[in-house]
């Protein structure tokens, strides 16, 4: 027996596995379909709730006019964010699992790169518009309601600090995803 045959023969001595439970497979398939449906409904519901929420704030009585304008701006920013997220942020369907591995993996790696780029550009399409809106909102209070300037300033600082933390988190995850995509590319490099 040659060394090649010996490797194959050795590999084939593995004892037969216990039989697969077909019902279990079907149940798992149904669970997966349910999970995907639930996630899609969740994303849709979040965008539906976000915009009216900010518009409601804009209509509150006693709000300084600049803050009212800012609330509408934030509401518009929420629309932009929802559309942007739907357009570029959602996970796209991968090719059928019966495609060749190189096609399948390429699609997945591209998806990870897309997600990284999506997060890397958050200052432009997420934090930028929101931060301007929030800044104007509190500026309205600072100009028209000097009696509450200290509280407004504190809330503005807290919101900006929160934005800062989220921004750093997004950029960190973007870097991590980029590294992951590169690691996958190296791992599945055909020339290696």
């Amino acid at each position, binding site marked *: 027996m040659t*060394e*090649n045959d010996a*490797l*194959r023969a*050795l*590999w*084939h*001595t*593995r*004892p*037969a*596995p216990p*039989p*697969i439970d*077909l019902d*279990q*497979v*079907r149940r*798992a*398939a149904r669970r*997966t379909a349910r999970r995907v449906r639930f996630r899609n409904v969740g994303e849709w519901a979040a965008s539906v709730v976000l915009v009216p929420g900010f518009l409601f704030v804009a209509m509150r009585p006693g709000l300084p006019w600049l803050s009212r304008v800012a609330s509408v701006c934030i509401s518009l920013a929420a629309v932009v964010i929802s559309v942007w997220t739907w357009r570029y942020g959602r996970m796209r369907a991968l090719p*059928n*699992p*019966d*495609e*060749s*591995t*190189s*096609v*399948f*993996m390429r699609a*997945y790696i591209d998806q990870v790169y897309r997600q990284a780029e999506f997060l890397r550009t958050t200052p432009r399409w997420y934090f930028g518009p929101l931060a301007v809106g929030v800044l104007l909102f509190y500026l309205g209070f600072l100009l028209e309601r000097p009696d509450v300037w200290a509280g407004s300033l504190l809330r503005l600082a807290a919101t900006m600090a929160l934005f800062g933390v989220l921004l750093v988190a997004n950029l960190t995850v973007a870097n991590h995803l980029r590294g*992951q995509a590169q*690691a*996958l590319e190296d*791992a*599945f*490099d*055909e020339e*290696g």
Partner: protein
Amino acid sequence: MTAAARQRFQTLVTEFGVAIDRLCAGYERDDARAAELRQDVWLGVWRALPSFREEATWRTWVFRVAHNVASSHVRRRIRDRSTPVAHPSDDLAPDPQGSPERQRSNAERRERLRTAIAGLRPIDRQVILLYLEDLSQAEIADITGITRTNVSTRIGRIKAELTRTLQETSR
């Protein structure tokens, strides 16, 4: 899913069940994870069944799905940065044939081969697992999407590497 599809799935499980089990063992050194992967592979086959096109044979098709599902496990491993755990497993249980000493020796060598395969780069592991399942170079090229020449070169290199590792670890 039609009755015909259910029947087809059952046939695939019967025909390729053992080969898929070996494949999963090659991807996952931990037996519990290998069993999970095996379940995921069959789930993948079940879900992809309606998309089967006559361009491929059932064997090529099943192995394609299996390797893509297994590649997802590699992705998760890279994401988790976790290290596979090598367990002395029930794989060391005696085979039904041969003397007990020979069975034990075979099981130990097989476990070493499994460990060596699990340590390969993903694309190399995929190629060698398909080779060990007696698939032709053309079939392997079709499944992996790399050229036949590349498959041929790769198989030669990996076999030499595995043989060397087996010899070194048996000393």
